[in-house]
């Protein structure tokens, strides 16, 4: 098996935008790759014996136990989901296996006005550990495109899933991810969301249910909102198991766009802990950031807290950097760059550096 085969399915003019969503076209640093353009799955291959990756439609035909997963996360919360999907991935990591290199999945909008609707399933078997990067992007031609992504995550007992979703859309694309994660005893689910390019509208409110005791969930998001963009982004964690923990950390910068940052932590058992942190910076008169943190409990023995701060860049911080010789413009970009610190994402070193570089490239000249 030769690495980099995915490159054959990517046009030269698509490389830059696809790479900007965290996809490694060389595949050097990835253990498995999935690529879907519009409705067709054009590439799907695992380079690791411990990772299964395939078109969801093949999984539905070939895997006897797929019925335990497909639609089941939604069913567990009595939620409906669209059935008219075309494509999406099925990814499974074998029991007890630690996959060192991340798995990557690329969902690409290619043609004008296309409505991409995918259904993804991710199963991390007992005790397995894995990083998954999903990169979503759109071609120059994909005006007025639409993307709907349904994702169901099953993080089994003592497993660890670190899921990083990078959105790199364009100014007239609308997006609606829907996702539910079920996390079993002792397992951890970390979800990172990064959106730094213009987009028309993104609406999402992923939910994680910590079913097993001692399970953990963490949602981190970094959002840069351009003029005329609208982000309605939330994260919800239901603490069902005993001694479960949730943390939601949101950072948004508005360059003139509108951001609604929702967060909801619900305690349904004793001895649970949850913390919400939402910080927003508004760099333009037109920008709007609306933080809506919610916490809910019927129990006394819980520890839920939240912290929200929204405003302009602090004058003192700019002045401080100016007193070290930076211009006011340099100071502002250093502060914003620091605010969007990838360190909050809890990534391993290699991936952290990769995303840091990606962010540097994308933020260059943005403000």
């Amino acid at each position, binding site marked *: 098996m030769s690495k980099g085969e995915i490159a054959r399915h990517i046009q030269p003019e698509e490389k830059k935008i696809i790479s900007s969503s965290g996809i490694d076209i060389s595949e050097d640093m990835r253990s498995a790759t999935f690529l879907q353009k519009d409705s067709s799955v054009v590439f799907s291959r695992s380079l690791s014996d411990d990772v299964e990756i395939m078109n969801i439609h093949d999984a539905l035909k070939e895997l006897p136990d797929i019925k335990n997963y497909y639609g089941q996360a939604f069913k567990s919360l009595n939620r409906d989901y669209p059935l008219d999907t075309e494509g999406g991935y099925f990814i499974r990591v074998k029991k007890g296996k630690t996959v060192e290199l991340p798995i990557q999945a690329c969902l690409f909008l290619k043609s004008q006005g296309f409505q991409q609707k995918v259904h993804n399933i991710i199963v991390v078997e007992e005790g397995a550990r894995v990083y998954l990067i999903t990169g979503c992007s759109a071609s120059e031609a994909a005006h007025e495109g639409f993307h709907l992504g349904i994702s169901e995550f099953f993080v089994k007992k003592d497993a660890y899933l670190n899921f990083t979703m990078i959105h790199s859309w364009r100014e007239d694309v609308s997006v609606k991810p829907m996702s539910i994660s079920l996390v079993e005893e002792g397992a951890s689910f970390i979800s990172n969301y990064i959106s730094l390019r213009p987009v028309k509208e993104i609406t999402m409110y992923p939910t994680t249910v910590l079913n097993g005791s001692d399970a953990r969930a963490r949602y981190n998001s970094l959002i840069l909102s351009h003029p005329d963009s609208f982000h309605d982004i939330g994260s919800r964690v239901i603490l069902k198991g005993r001694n479960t923990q949730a943390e939601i950390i949101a950072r948004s910068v508005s360059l003139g766009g509108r951001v609604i940052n929702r967060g909801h932590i619900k305690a349904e058992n004793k001895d649970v802990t949850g913390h919400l942190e939402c910080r927003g910076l508004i760099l333009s008169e037109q920008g709007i950031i609306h933080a809506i943190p919610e916490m809910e409990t019927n129990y006394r023995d819980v520890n839920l807290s939240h912290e929200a701060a929204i405003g302009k860049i602090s004058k003192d911080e700019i002045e401080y950097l100016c*007193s*070290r*010789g*930076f211009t006011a413009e340099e100071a502002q970009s250093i502060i914003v*760059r620091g605010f969007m610190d990838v360190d909050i994402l809890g990534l391993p070193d290699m991936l952290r550096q990769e995303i840091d570089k990606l962010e540097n490239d994308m933020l260059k000249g943005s403000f």
Partner: protein
Amino acid sequence: MLEVNGLSVEVEGKLILDNIHFSIKKGEAAVLFGPNGSGKSTLIKTIMGFAGYEVTKGDIIFKGKKINDFSTEQRVKLGLGIMYQHPPAIRGVKLSQIARVLSKNEKDIRLMSERLALTGHLDRDINLGFSGGEMKRSELFQVILQNPDFLLLDEPESGVDLENIGIMGKVLSDYLRDAAKSALMITHTGYILEYVKAKNSCVMIEGKLWCVGNPKEMFESIRKYGYDKCKECVCPRVK
């Protein structure tokens, strides 16, 4: 090197500094004493050109140039450097990141961070969760790397333990040994006087400068008699 002539400063429409005169020559260090709220930090911030400190009268002349209208960044380029009394924390901005802009020499950065016991702080967000003493060391670290000709030190040793005052004092005295470097420092404790040879000192009370004299003698007198005594020695045009 630095000359302040008849300087009056308002903050939010309130007169804070009233007709301040002084000058500090190249290679000299001077000390500023004065009770809380008397305007010492205001003087330093005005010299740095910070927003909100409005010069209503007088001139600030640095290296022969009137810098009243210079931006902070221009003043820094000209050779001013400040050690903050209360520096702000900046999330996600690492101390090392700033250090690397202040000095291109990795070895200098490493040696100075070792001297000031800050190696463990280089990868931390600047000032975020730093203890009082750590903040002061980080301020000194940055301003030394910046290598300005004129140091404005706003209570460099406040809140610093005696051992660290020794370390910081040594770093400062080494720096100021260079005949081209000058400094103006504010102190309440006087500890820094053990390390830095200052020629003159004066006292600020209610936005005015009083008295001029030998720093150690003046400090002893303030300790014995308090600031009120300083007012007896009227010297409103300190030169």
